[in-house]
């Protein structure tokens, strides 16, 4: 059953650390100087506050993404594309066996508003949930201001391709995107475009590597080109993917630079399946029945190739398509 009410956006009075408490359905959320405390009818859980804020920042920014966004091995969300399940222990075999798992379904707007309110209240002035650990201050301590600019960034969703007339602009020093400290070796040259008169808005080319070298966020796939339901969503990665992504469709990864190591687990139980090391030029297909988390020792460029066809989750769930695109 979907809980249709809008969230109670939190307590009026802050707790002794200066932070408000929040509730949605039968879940409640509180934070102290270091930890987030999640409570549901038959259980409680603690997460480090920096990891929690990084996770819900992405969940909100991505519109709850494709499939499952695990904040850790206990708490997370399932996107039903219109409604969202908030769960505890649902994809954790031990919690399931112990009967400690719990799940509640909410209208997408309701859970979005809750997470946005938590981000606004719990993100201190020093902390940027999208930044790499080396490029942000601390998330910890008593309430210390806010950082609205960091938590309300524009999400890039190109209609055709970045740089095309009327579409998402390319990044430059002038529009606030300097080259990242770890991509100073990336060539900034431009392609040569010679469009015949009348075709200037159709023949377009940009330097994608230069564009990515100027990203100010990490682990945030953004749509740079669209071919019907085929979406190119490159992203720059550094440190650890703040969520464990449970797939409801196949995702293709193309490692464009440097290296990422992926932990791949069974989506439903968390049982270890594989560890994949991807170096520049490597390609991998993440199956539709796994969950994965990436580790990037230095900032790297990753192309995430998404198939946004809305019928895919039902086809995989019904067993009408194999979970991996390659049959050996």
């Amino acid at each position, binding site marked *: 059953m979907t809980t249709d009410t809008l969230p109670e956006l939190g307590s009026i009075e802050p707790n002794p650390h200066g932070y408000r408490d929040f509730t949605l359905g039968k879940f409640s959320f509180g934070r102290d100087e270091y930890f987030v405390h999640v409570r549901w009818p038959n259980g409680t859980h603690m997460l480090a506050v920096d990891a929690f804020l990084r996770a819900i920042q992405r969940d909100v920014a991505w519109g709850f993404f494709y499939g499952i966004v695990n904040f850790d091995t206990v708490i997370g969300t399932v996107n039903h594309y219109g409604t969202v399940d908030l769960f505890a222990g649902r994809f954790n075999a031990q919690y399931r066996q112990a009967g400690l798992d719990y799940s509640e379904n909410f209208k997408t707007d309701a859970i979005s508003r809750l997470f946005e309110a938590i981000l606004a209240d719990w993100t201190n002035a020093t902390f940027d949930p999208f930044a790499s650990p080396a490029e942000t201050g601390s998330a910890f301590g008593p309430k210390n201001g806010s950082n609205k600019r960091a938590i309300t960034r524009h999400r890039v969703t190109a209609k055709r391709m970045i740089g095309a007339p009327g579409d998402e602009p390319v990044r430059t020093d002038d529009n606030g995107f300097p080259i990242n400290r770890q991509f100073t070796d990336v*060539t900034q040259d431009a*392609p040569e475009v010679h469009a*015949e008169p009348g075709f200037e808005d159709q023949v377009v*080319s*940009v330097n994608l590597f230069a564009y990515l070298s100027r990203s100010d966020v990490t682990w945030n796939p953004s749509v740079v080109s669209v*071919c019907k339901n*085929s979406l*190119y969503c490159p992203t720059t990665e550094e440190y650890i993917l703040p969520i464990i992504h449970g797939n409801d469709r196949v995702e293709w990864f193309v490692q464009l630079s440097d290296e990422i190591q992926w932990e791949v687990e069974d989506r439903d139980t968390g049982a270890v399946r*594989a560890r994949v090391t991807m170096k520049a030029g490597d390609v991998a297909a993440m199956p539709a029945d796994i969950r994965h988390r990436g580790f990037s020792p230095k900032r790297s460029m990753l192309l995430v*190739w998404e198939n946004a066809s809305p019928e895919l989750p039902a086809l995989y769930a019904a067993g009408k398509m194999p979970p991996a695109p390659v049959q050996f």
Partner: protein
Amino acid sequence: MGHVRARRGHMTLLPAGAAYQFHAGSPSVILLQTLAGRDTVERWAEICQTAPRPKPNSKEVTR
């Protein structure tokens, strides 16, 4: 409609309905973003690597 000289890391939009041809002076790689169609040939099983499944009695074999 035009022509484009693209190098490493560059990304190009080709108009819908356009005919195109690629020229490369030396071996190079391009990644085409497109959709499966009637001319698509999937050869991933010949190209991709995977780890072999361990045999049930593999411990005994290695002793």
